[in-house]
């Protein structure tokens, strides 16, 4: 499986994802620069966390208009997979590759803490190996993670099963207290209609080794690798 980790000016989870993919999962991984548009050598691209362009204007707004992001629709159309975490999720929403947007946390402060999310959707390559209702422990670290979509659009997302993760308690109950940023419907992650583009605010790369507190983030990658073994690494291209 060939992974690419995209670097925008201001990205900082790039090395963390690189570390997990190469040192923990032992997969091939390369960095991509935000100006790169030739994505043909990759099966899966990761848009990592950070403050691309300082989060100036709106989180992810400027990066959402960069050359590499402009090349994503083609990449996805040809079977490529995209995972956006934290700032990567914000970028995908700004680029309209995912529905909705991420607003300033309701508490108006940055939050770095452990959260639990419940898996709502197991039809994406990143969640295929998981159980519906399964609870994953993954940290968040953001100031703008309040998921927002117009009520009608949110309804449609729910109906079409595009909500992938919701903030929940350790035992999987979706409560207001478990919602760290005021996200609508406790949404922590969504996918595109095909499930090939997934964005989430939590950091799976920070939950991929027991020594840092959780290995639940690895399950996303393991699902993915399982699905690729199934589908073959060429992804039909």
């Amino acid at each position, binding site marked *: 499986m060939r992974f690419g980790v995209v670097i925008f000016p201001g990205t900082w989870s790039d090395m*963390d994802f690189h570390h997990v993919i190469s040192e923990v999962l032992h997969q091939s991984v390369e960095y991509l620069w935000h100006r790169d548009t030739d994505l043909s050598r990759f099966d899966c691209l990761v848009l990592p966390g950070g403050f691309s362009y300082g989060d*100036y204007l709106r989180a992810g707004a400027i990066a959402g208009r960069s050359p590499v992001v402009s090349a994503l629709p083609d990449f996805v159309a040809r079977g490529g997979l995209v995972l956006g975490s934290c700032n990567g999720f914000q970028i995908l929403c700004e680029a309209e590759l995912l529905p909705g947007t991420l607003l300033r946390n309701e508490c*108006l402060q940055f939050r770095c803490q452990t959260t639990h999310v419940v898996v709502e959707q197991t039809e994406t390559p990143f969640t295929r190996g998981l159980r519906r209702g399964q609870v994953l422990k993954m940290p968040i670290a953001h100031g703008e993670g309040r998921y927002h979509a117009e009520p009608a659009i949110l309804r449609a997302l729910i109906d079409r099963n595009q909500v992938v993760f919701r903030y929940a308690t350790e035992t999987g109950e979706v409560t207001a207290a478990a919602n760290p940023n005021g996200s609508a419907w406790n949404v922590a992650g969504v996918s595109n209609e095909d499930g090939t583009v997934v964005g989430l605010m939590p950091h799976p790369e920070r939950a991929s080794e027991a020594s840092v507190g959780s290995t639940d983030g690895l399950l996303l990658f393991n699902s993915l690798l399982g699905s690729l073994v199934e589908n073959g690494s060429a992804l039909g291209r």
Partner: protein
Amino acid sequence: MTAAGPKVTPDLAVAHGLSREEYDRIIGLLGREPTYTELGLFSALWSEHCSYKSSRTLLKRLPSRGPHVLQGPGENAGVVDLGDGLALAMKIESHNHPSFIEPFQGAATGVGGILRDIFTMGARPLCLLDSLRFGPPDHPATGAGSGYLLGGVVAGIAHYGNCFGCPTVGGEVGFAPEYAKNPLVNVLCLGLIARGRIFRARAEGVGNTFIYVGAKTGRDGIHGATMASESFDETSSERRPTVQVGDPFTEKLLLEACLEAMATGAIVGIQDMGAAGLACSLSEMPARAGTGAEIELDRVPQRESAMTPYELLLSESQERMLLVVTRGREAEVQRVFAKWELDAVPIGRVTGDGVLRVRMHGELVAEVPVRALTDDAPAYDRPRARPAWLDAVRAFDPATVPEPADPTAVLLHLLAAPTIASKASIWRQYDHMVGINTLVVPGSDAAVLRLKGTGKAVAVATDGNGRYAYLDPFQGGAMAVAEAARNVVCAGGRPLAMTDCLNFGSPERPEIMWQFAEAVNGIAEACRVLEIPVVGGNVSFYNETLGQAILPTPIVGVVGLLADAERRTTQWFKEPGDLVILLGDPAGGLGGSEYLATLHGRLAGTPAPLDLARERAVQAACLAAIEAGCVRSAHDCAEGGLAVALAEGCVTGPRPLGAEVALDGAGRLDARLFGEAPSRIVVSVPPGERVRFERIVREWAVPVTALGRVGGDQLTIRVDGQVRIAASLAAMAAAFGGSFERLVGGATAPAATEGAA
């Protein structure tokens, strides 16, 4: 020479913060009167902040050598060897004055400055810690209600560190009325470097090129260095236009570009432009290498129009660096900076004659020997005098303090005291995980960060107690070292090196200078006995407003190495049935204690004595037991004494656990429960490890007291057989976790200066 600007007179020199004697010294060194631009150079470089003129001689007393030291004081950061081809850069700095004027930006740019000090060494920043001091939360200037100083400082640190992408993993926050108008913001940074790839701030090689990189220069913070060398008075707010705004995004690009450019091999020397900006780098870099510099100021990238040479040299615009690049290889470096969309402009050359020559519009505007600005700066042996009031405050009769009727209530009160209470509502605003190295997150005695690929880890903690230093500055200095080291030991780290930030009032007052000298002597003594070299630090004087100085506050940051990251230890109890054991003498004292300050409003007495040999033995014993794997938790007894340490052991972990403990012996009840003393560590040991534990610690001949057992849902403390404290986990957790939450938690009033949305 072109005399741009007003005519230089002795009065103008005085207005620049120079004394008449210093002005005469300048004329003596130059053999003529300085130009206006040159006066600016001298005033900045000879300021207390840049020249350390009041502290230089005394700081030489700090031991700075050790088997692991690769770089001691004198560079932008110290460097120690970690083995495995890795080295660690470390440095602490204050940004007290700017943070009082503008808390958000002042604290933010403080973080920016210390990060640059670390990455100029070639290191990638690993983590940050922040040591903060404020007035009491209910004091109008600290204004928990408006969230102004405290909220602004914390938000500023969060803004810069989070956006830049360096985890803030620890620090401390303390409160006392003496800090109300002079808050302290000290930030420590660690960075990792490959052992042979350390860069230094030296302008080597005649003919090499100075390249200016990073943000453009504006009229930001001109005179920041002289501002940090003055006390506050009523006119301070008039000097406000000097406030700089930090741009962590540009800093992040600067980091990546610098590290990438360093890898080309074309960079000979590098220094950040911090206090006194270009003036400082252009004199210090050649001075260190015995060279000179010829500079064309017109080439400096400028953000504002019509800037004068004086302004260009003294601007403290942030996110800039000065490089010295091998002649002929400039393009390689410029290519890297172009990729990161940053300016990289050659502005001059290294010369061999030891003179700094600055031209603008083709005209010479300054011509000064670099040594005149640096090595020839004045150094003062300022008068020192033991304060007349000291004996009065040290004389303390415990009989004037009633013994507590309800020790459980006192415990809960102390747990809720702002200095002791949980700071989670602060550190959850800091990204403390980015980099995925943080094995022990904030909330234990020390943070632990793994060194990927080695199986090792580093532990780091900062400490300092202004009350102890006020009552006994020698001991306050020594205790800061002992406590920081003890905290590192409690996490399983073997102390390697330290960096210190010395926050004091005006050195022109003999009693402050006496406090300073005593504190330095105390630090030096502790360093010698504990064998921890000082590899760098910072001095912040003039922390006083209208003649009212802060408590003398030496802050010490200690770094330790864990040979096996899996042996790391945290402070909280883990298993019911484990034995609770105290290493060290159980006796505590009331002098200078949090108990006396919080419950009786008194800052008095003498802190319990520090026996450095005992301290060393306690730390060695604890570390040996941790390394042998027979300790499940270790927690240093600090503010609030033994009772608070036990309560913290109960409630700070992910799974709260009670404990049953018994104390026997003599002394006042409050001193035994809440009295403070150094050299005490509470450990929990699995019953099956008891024999091995005792065998190990016996070798170090330290007092060992079996206190009781972990378990239940309350903390019970019996004294001489009688239950004196019975506090439920819920009550302790509410007191410890709730009080601070109310102060800074939730949505505070939006400071207009909060960063990008």
